[in-house]
């Protein structure tokens, strides 16, 4: 069992950047371009790791510490995420709370690093980041409460190490939870329609503009960290969507991997066919997602008296 559990830790560490590659290829396909190689993100990472760094005179140690703390928080969070029906390496009652707060810690330091540059661009991005995540967090929590009630569990591994017997009679419910988690995924990972990961020069951008001044290994940490963060939310979404618990367990993991590939393509699809929303429309989007999660919770309460 420990081997499978370790595998679900090794997969993201190795494959998470591939998701970004898949998304980019999908978008290129829809735009009628050839697009960058699938492994481009890996090339970027290696190139950045080999480089030196440039630091602004305005910055302090916070600026240099931010990327490390962020990446460490993402890796630590991954320890608690189950994958493909296999429980996570660490699971305990309320682990999703720690996961959400570790992500918040990462966000806190990325935001502080952005403010450390003294650039008004980055301040703007930081301000938007904290605004939208304030709305995204309750959505995630309500969705988790619904899963807790449904699965009678208290940890992510119990919620998601999936139960086909629960899935079949509750399809609308899982559908609603998936919508909520998917919206949170898009918002937290700086994807369209909340943010545009491609450019950082427009005044409308959030995440990319915050990391404008990072360079070298720091930027590599940030890039790799954002790939891992995408994987975290993707794995949770897979847990909700694909209720498999099969022997041998490796089969479940392979299925989940395929699911992650499909998810990447789906994100690419969303990014290709949608435009970024106006900033003022993002809180309503997230509140709508919260509505979905709350409705799912109500359905659970009704269905499981």
């Amino acid at each position, binding site marked *: 069992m420990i081997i499978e559990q370790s595998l679900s830790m090794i997969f993201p560490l190795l494959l998470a950047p591939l998701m970004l590659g898949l998304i980019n290829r999908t978008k290129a396909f829809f735009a009628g371009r050839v697009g960058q190689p699938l492994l481009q993100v890996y090339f970027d990472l290696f190139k950045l790791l080999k480089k030196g760094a440039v630091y602004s005179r305005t910055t302090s140690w916070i600026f240099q510490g931010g990327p490390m703390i962020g990446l460490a928080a993402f890796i630590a969070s991954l320890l608690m995420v189950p994958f493909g029906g296999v429980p996570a390496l660490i699971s305990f009652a309320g682990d999703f709370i720690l996961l959400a707060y570790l992500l918040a810690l990462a966000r806190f330091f990325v935001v502080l690093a952005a403010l450390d540059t003294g650039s008004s661009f980055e301040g703007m991005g930081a301000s938007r980041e904290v605004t939208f995540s*304030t709305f995204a967090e309750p959505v995630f929590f309500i969705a988790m409460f619904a899963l807790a009630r449904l699965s009678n569990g208290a940890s992510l591994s119990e919620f998601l190490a999936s139960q086909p017997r629960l899935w079949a009679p509750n399809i609308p419910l899982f559908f609603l939870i998936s919508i909520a988690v998917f919206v949170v995924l898009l918002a937290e990972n700086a994807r369209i329609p909340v943010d545009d990961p491609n450019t950082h020069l427009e005044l409308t951008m959030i995440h990319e503009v915050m990391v404008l001044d990072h360079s070298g290994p720091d930027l590599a940490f940030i890039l790799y960290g954002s790939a891992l963060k995408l994987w975290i939310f993707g794995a949770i979404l897979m847990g909700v969507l694909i209720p498999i618990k099969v022997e041998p367990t490796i089969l479940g993991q392979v299925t989940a991997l395929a699911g992650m590939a499909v998810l990447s393509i789906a994100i690419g699809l969303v990014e290709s066919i949608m435009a970024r929303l106006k900033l003022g429309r993002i809180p309503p989007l997230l509140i709508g997602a919260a509505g979905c999660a709350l409705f799912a*919770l109500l359905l659970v309460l009704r269905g499981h008296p």
Partner: protein
Amino acid sequence: MILFLIAVAIWVSTGISALVFSRRYAVSSWIGAGGAILGCLLALHSALQAILGNLLQSFQFPWSLPFGSFYLKMDPLSGWFLLPILGLSIMAALFGTEYMAAWRDRPSAGGSWFFFNILIASMSLVVVARDGVLFLLAWEIMSLSSFFLVTFEHQKKFVRDAGWNYLVATHAGTACLLALFVLMAKSTGSFSFDAWLEKGVSPFSSIVLFLLAVVGFGTKAGFVPLHIWLPEAHPAAPSHVSALMSGVMIKTGIYGLVRLLSFSEVPPEWGCWILIGIGASSGILGVLFALAQHDLKRLLAYHSIENIGIISLGLGVGYLGLSIHSPGLAILGFSGGLLHVLNHALFKGLLFMGAGSLLHGTGTLDIEHLGGVIKKMPWTGSTFLIGAAAIAGLPPMNGFISEFLIYLGALKGIGTLHGSPLVFLIIAATSLTLIGGLALACFAKAFGVIFLGSPRSKHGHDAHESGWGMRLPMISLAAGCAAVGLMAPLAFLILRPVLTMVCRIEALAAQEIFTQTSMTLFFVVLTVLGFLGLAGFLWGLRRWLLSGKTIHESVTWDCGYDAPSPRMQYTGSSFAQPLTSLFKSILRTQRKISPPSGFFPIHASFFTSAPDVFVRTIIRPFYHAVRFGFSKMKWFQHGRVNAYILYIGLTLLILLIWNLR
């Protein structure tokens, strides 16, 4: 208990000596602060013994108060509230010796140590008093001594206003408490807490008593909308006093509530709903108002309201557990709420001292004038960062642990309960997430704008670090925040006697819940340690990667603009603007704009302020009505002495007839 009594004697005597030597600041501060610290160390021994439940210490002085008696008793609950009071008092006394030296030429500087020590003594007496009259007496001394500490700089008008505001608010609260205690004494025939416990009379007994308790204790604690004195008094008071008042004095309100509510066996459900409702509204509104502030101490004061909200959410969940006979829910709720009492004392004390150090080093607390201070004040900056992470509930720190326990309680309930308790648990947990997100935004703003970037005015440029007298307390409190966070299972187990007392369960009966929860906390700490290890590893990796590479220093990327200036940085107000405008219907931020006009505009200005909505909509109209009512009685109060003598005669006559009846 004898040590505790000696401590009280030390506080009072050194306080009076400080007053005697008030002309010589050095002497009075040594005596005052030294006495405060010595007394705290002695009393700490009693408090720790009491928390561990080793012995129940009580003391009845052969001295009768009118209606009451001088009856002290120290049980785990008293000990638990005494712990932060004493600990933070030591730190505040240390901090104060250096901080107050700036006012050394004023005779009142020495005298302020008198009130400081009396405040410590009265707070300690409040949590060990076991008699209603003694409690109110200590409560009143506490309010008065803190009033004199708040009005230390009474030459300034805003300080006098704030002091007046505080005095009125605290007495309005005390009036409710007086009514509450008299009513409770009437139904039991005694002012002794033991009698109330025996008869099972508590504010839960009737809605009138409950509302009196909530208003009376809530005014001190800062429940919305009774919080109005906090954002005024904290900016006015010297920083170590704000730290003490916000860190522990407002908790005496929570203590009083818990103490009185613990007299009833099974609380009614409506009481828990009210507590959860108060917690959610105080928490969310507190942090929202904090977001709109630009004075650091005002911002911190609103965060105290938020944290009191979190505490009362925990207590609400705990009492809900008691009322539906779910010991697990009760233990988790109370442990979260009560641990947050200690945690808030640690990080709020730290943050207010950080604010004091900033004021000392830069001369202003307007965050829009600061920036880049961490380079000039590395100690203050780093410890403030730890406090900010702790108050935002971020993992390695203590704030996360107490919020986690409340979440865990709510999660447990959401998995199993039905009906209205379930709805209230969902409300509690969801508002906790919202509070967490907003608090993160607010402290990203406070820390980021003050300490990071480049200085926005000469205040930031000329900043200098404080001396060790101010650094040491901040470092100790920061270490405390980290220690409680990293030793969470231990902290939870220390709370155990307190919990079994408040929940009225046998320690053995709840064995399983305690074991489970401390295991869960152990896993939390394990994961967090994993995170810290990873961060350390990445730090080493980054060093290795960068060794031998060229590292440039340059300007912040400026988009090709030629002359960027520090004033172009994002300010605190602009950082918070998306959130404040989303919640503008609640905040009602006032703006004064004079827009630029013409081709070469010289004058343009923009100013926002977020005065307290509740003052404008509830408190002020209420006091206007009171004043109007009293002004109608002016004909009665006209200043003619002969008529007054007539009143006295009439009153005596009426009383006489009443007695003859």
